[in-house]
């Protein structure tokens, strides 16, 4: 006898099945297991997902190598002499692999099993709202969490598929540095890899169709990063459309259109960093879950999909593709699926950080978003060169910019500074709790720290 479609089964294999073991899945799985629920996780790739295996962790590890290399080049300015410095790509790989290992991904399976969570390997496919198929077996549950992450977008560029292009995963595993590299996409991933490769002397061409790099940030941020890259010798091509790629022996001729003119450049490698698209190929139609191939699964602020017992979290929802957002959403989903009182996701203060040198960070609304919503706002900016820390560090490139409403309540902020990724959290707190700039202004900040620039910027708003 088959079960009638859409009828909730009385007997199921699990209380919760989580598809994906990344940040979007892992948190909810452990929360449910801690409540004594019977939980299974399904993973077809590496346990731990994108961030620790191929994303944040390995990229930040190699960027740390680049940072160390750049620091050594400048030490003579600070009264230290060193001998000749050399780059050992094999050793950088070992360091990167060690950093990945330190996250505990190696024992990912055991970590789940220690918590009493069943780990199932394979591709999950929904057969109906209460059952999915993995390999030759079927599993049913009362609740599901879809956290399948995302994959690289491949733009329709003539000759791209034939040119043996690399993505960020392959870029992490390169055994030799290319002499010339063309990176398609000037977002966070494209910019970080531009910084990495150019630090080690690779001639990088970075192309993006937007007017500025880091197009989701305020224009000043992109303009400054462009200027820094160009100073480092990077060829930045904004408002550029890559037309075609032709193989020429082991090299590739990339043709692109910039401001109405067609240019060509010959490179050793082409890297694709044109954005990410949600992984939604898991039979969601059979489960009654509405989704869009580009925008991901439609979710409420409770993280429930159009099938209320199926939740989604992380990149697959297509909102903010960050690890911290995925784990936040997973926490909300993990709470809501077993609680009558639902929590709602609040995206007012999502921090963003891009690990170029100096770092770039942002939180809350950008000017473009405020203009689009028709909100009245005021802005203030302060260059980091005005603070004491800049003087003693010999780093004067960067700024802090705060956006606030007419009453001085902080709505968003952008920072370009050596520790921007750390500094942004003071402003994230302000955005989250609707604080006025005067609260930051009246708070004492230690001298000499980079965060003093935040206080001075807040002062500019509170004194108006």
């Amino acid at each position, binding site marked *: 006898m088959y079960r009638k479609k859409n009828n909730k089964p009385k007997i199921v294999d699990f209380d919760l099945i989580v598809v994906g073991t990344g940040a979007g899945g892992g948190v909810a799985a452990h929360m449910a297991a801690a409540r004594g629920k019977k939980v299974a996780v399904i993973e077809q790739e590496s346990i731990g997902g994108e961030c620790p295996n191929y994303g944040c962790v390995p990229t930040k590890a190699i960027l740390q190598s680049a940072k160390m290399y750049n620091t050594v080049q400048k030490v003579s300015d600070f009264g230290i002499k060193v001998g000749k410095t050399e780059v050992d790509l094999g050793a950088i790989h070992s360091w990167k692999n060690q950093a990945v290992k330190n996250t505990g991904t190696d024992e990912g399976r055991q970590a789940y099993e220690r918590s009493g969570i069943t780990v199932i390997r394979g591709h999950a496919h929904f057969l109906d709202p209460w059952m999915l198929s*993995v390999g030759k077996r079927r599993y049913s549950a009362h609740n599901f969490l879809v956290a399948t992450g995302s994959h690289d977008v491949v733009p329709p560029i003539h000759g791209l598929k034939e040119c043996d292009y690399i993505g960020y995963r392959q870029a992490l595993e390169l055994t030799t540095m290319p002499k010339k590299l063309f990176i398609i996409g000037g977002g966070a991933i494209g910019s970080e890899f531009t910084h990495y490769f150019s630090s080690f002397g690779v001639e990088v061409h970075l192309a993006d169709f937007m007017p500025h790099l880091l197009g989701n940030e305020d224009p000043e941020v992109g303009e400054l990063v462009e200027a820094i890259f160009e100073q480092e010798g990077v060829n930045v091509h904004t408002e550029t459309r890559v037309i075609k790629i032709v193989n020429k022996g082991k090299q590739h001729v990339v043709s692109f259109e910039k401001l109405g003119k067609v240019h060509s450049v010959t490179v050793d490698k082409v890297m694709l960093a044109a954005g990410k698209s949600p992984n939604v190929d898991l*039979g969601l139609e059979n489960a009654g879950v509405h989704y869009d191939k580009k925008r991901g699964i439609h979710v409420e602020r409770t993280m429930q999909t159009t099938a209320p017992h199926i939740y989604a979290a992380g990149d697959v929802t297509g909102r903010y593709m960050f690890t911290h957002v995925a784990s936040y959403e997973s926490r909300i989903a993990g709470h809501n699926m077993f609680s009558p009182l639902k929590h709602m996701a609040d995206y007012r203060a999502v921090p963003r950080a891009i690990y170029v040198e100096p770092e770039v960070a942002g939180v809350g609304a950008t000017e473009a978003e405020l203009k689009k919503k028709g909100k009245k706002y005021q802005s203030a900016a302060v260059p980091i060169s005005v603070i004491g820390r800049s003087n003693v560090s010999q780093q004067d490139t960067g700024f802090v910019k705060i956006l606030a409403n007419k009453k001085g309540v902080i709505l968003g902020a952008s920072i370009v500074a050596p520790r921007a990724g750390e500094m942004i959290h003071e402003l994230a707190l302000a955005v989250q709790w609707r604080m006025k700039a005067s609260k930051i202004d009246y708070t004492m900040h230690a001298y000499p720290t980079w965060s003093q620039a935040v206080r001075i910027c807040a002062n500019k708003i509170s004194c108006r």
Partner: protein
Amino acid sequence: MGKTMKHIVKRRGHTEAYDERKLYAAVFSACQSVREPSGSAELIADKVVSDINEWMGNKHEVTSNDIRANAALHLKAYNPDAAYIYLHHRVVW
């Protein structure tokens, strides 16, 4: 390792082995019903079957709805009218 047999979960809930010949025949007749020449219809059916086989890749079980929706999506790129007929033939006929 040999290929594992794929299974289709039908609308009424029962399962049967995936038979690409049935898909080929359905796509071919949808193409013919919109006056696509036989040779071209064969080529299109071949391409759609190969696209679906690739999509099936690591999946052991899919529903007949999945096959129909995906095949229609691929067929739409080659012949939108045939895709419409393929998707709605139960209603049309």
